[in-house]
């Protein structure tokens, strides 16, 4: 078990589960449990009262909901891009490919509250006029893939999916699709290629998926957490959601806390909570040690030193003002013993390994960066290596088909910015500053 919510809720009433609201209940993932908290009532109300898609989109805009997959694009606006006049099949896709180190929230939604995700997707399908949906689940969480298949079967049997949902005349089919080990498939056009049965290589944009997606049809891709939030917003109104968070950051967000804390796990909290409070919720830095640094949103967001993150609130503006970003809400906590040079080496290897190889700056640049950092860690670094790393990274950024190239540069630039002395020390002494006394 990753963690449990009952435990969290009792520590601090500030935890506010929306996506994970069944977590405390027995048999949290079952249809019965979801029905017991009013599940699938929103889609029935929408269909019965024939509430217009425009009205629903308006509600989502008011909620301030921004995509939870990393880029933070306003969901209401995104949904109005899908052409509602086109004939033929339209698709919606749920992106559960999370594989950016430190990210494990979507897994918990699928495991604990799959029906809320399904209802969110049905509502989205109704709004955008989509007939078919896929939930793309990365292959490493196989047990969740299988449990999601079960949830789909349950929903289908109860006529929440399929032909004329609840006898109310709206058809929607939803399927589970599994990846098999490729981080890049989280990029939405790579994911679409993967669903078409190809290598997951991102497409040139435009055209965007909204007009040219799966099999060339209009397709909307959102993150798991984004869809799972929708039923609550429709039930309680956009304003209630916006009121939970802070200005520009509506509602709750799941933060996945990993690394050097006493209780790693997922914490769904109101946006705007001070980082300090979340650190307390997760038991503080482990082994009684001091905090050194935190990557707040996954490795594609800049690392922040302890002094900075301890002043920061967890919301789009708060993290931006601190020089980082919410990303996918993947907080990686590092204690005072962490060697930033070796940590950067592992991250650089990740981007090198996961580059799909289509663009020269990304393919060659990520390999180059990794080899230079490896050379430093092997004790063979040269004084000019720091500038070389900065230079190569800057040359990858902004010159690639997808954002993986930009992401790869982020840790290099931010680690060196904040911990340059450690890099210099390693190069000069051939060993980590953390091993200084040995």
């Amino acid at each position: 078990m990753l963690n449990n919510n009952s435990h969290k809720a009792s520590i601090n009433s500030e935890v506010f589960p929306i996506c994970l609201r069944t977590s405390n209940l027995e048999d949290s993932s079952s249809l019965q449990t979801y029905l017991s908290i009013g599940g699938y009532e929103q889609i029935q109300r929408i269909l019965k009262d024939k509430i217009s898609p425009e009205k629903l989109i308006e509600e989502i805009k008011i909620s301030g909901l921004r995509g939870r997959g990393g880029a933070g694009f306003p969901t209401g606006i995104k949904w109005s891009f899908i052409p509602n006049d086109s004939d033929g099949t339209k698709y919606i896709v749920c992106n559960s490919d999370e594989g950016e180190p430190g990210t494990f929230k979507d897994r918990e939604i699928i495991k604990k509250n799959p029906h809320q995700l399904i209802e969110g997707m049905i509502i989205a399908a109704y709004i955008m006029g989509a007939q078919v949906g896929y939930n793309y689940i990365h292959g490493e969480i196989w047990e969740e893939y299988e449990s999601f298949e079960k949830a789909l079967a349950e929903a289908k049997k109860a006529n929440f999916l399929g032909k004329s949902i609840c006898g109310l005349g709206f058809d929607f089919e939803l399927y589970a699709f599994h990846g098999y080990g490729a981080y890049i498939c989280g990029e939405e056009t790579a994911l679409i290629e993967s669903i078409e049965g190809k290598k997951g290589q991102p497409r040139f944009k435009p055209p965007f998926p909204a007009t040219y997606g799966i099999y060339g049809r209009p397709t909307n891709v959102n993150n798991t957490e984004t869809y799972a939030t929708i039923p609550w917003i429709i039930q309680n109104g956009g304003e209630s959601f916006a009121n939970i968070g802070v200005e520009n950051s509506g509602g709750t967000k799941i933060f996945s806390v990993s690394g050097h804390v006493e209780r790693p796990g997922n914490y769904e909290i109101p946006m705007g909570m001070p980082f300090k409070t979340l650190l307390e919720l997760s038991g503080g830095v482990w082994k009684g040690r001091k905090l050194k640094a935190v990557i707040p949103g996954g490795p594609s967001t800049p690392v922040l030193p302890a002094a900075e993150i301890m002043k920061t609130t967890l919301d789009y503006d708060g993290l931006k003002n601190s020089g980082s970003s919410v990303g996918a809400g993947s907080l990686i906590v590092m204690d005072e013993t962490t060697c930033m040079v070796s940590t950067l080496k592992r991250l650089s290897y990740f981007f090198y390994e996961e580059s799909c190889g289509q663009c020269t700056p990304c393919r060659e640049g990520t390999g180059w960066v990794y080899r230079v950092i490896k050379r430093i860690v092997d004790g063979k670094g040269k004084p000019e290596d720091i500038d070389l790393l900065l230079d190569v990274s800057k040359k990858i950024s902004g010159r690639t088909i997808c954002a993986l190239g930009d992401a790869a540069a982020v840790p290099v630039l931010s680690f060196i910015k904040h911990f340059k002395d450690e890099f210099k020390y390693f190069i000069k002494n051939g060993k980590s500053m953390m091993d200084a006394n040995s």
Partner: protein
Amino acid sequence: MLTEITRKKIDGELKKFPIDQKQSAIIAALQIIQTENGFLTDDLIALAADYLDMPKIAAMEVATFYNMFELKSAGKYKISVCTNISCALREADDIVCHLRKKLNINFNEVTKDSKFSLKESECMGACGGAPLMTINNHKMYEHLTPQKVDQILEELD
């Protein structure tokens, strides 16, 4: 020839896609075949391609692109350990060292008795349970300690 059971399973996957888009089932088909056979051979990949009416080279591209496919004979139990940052911070290295010593193999090697193979893996999207590993792709073991690893391996015949 693909067995009757394999074909049935692939047919189940094909129901998810339009009839003229069989290729969409290639990842699933290769997964099903690999799960039965332990790894993929060129012949098996060709059979999958034929079954889905797609070029063999396109199926081969998929088999080589996605990391969870095995193109070489793996151990009866393939152990994949995540060594990415959240796991590394929680001492995944100790787990790797322990497994290396215990099995007397390095990453990408198979034990002499063909029982185990060891792989290094990227983030598995389960970092709250670090350190962790999977066995034969589909079963995950979290919050590992060397003792727990011993126990898990002992239970495998």
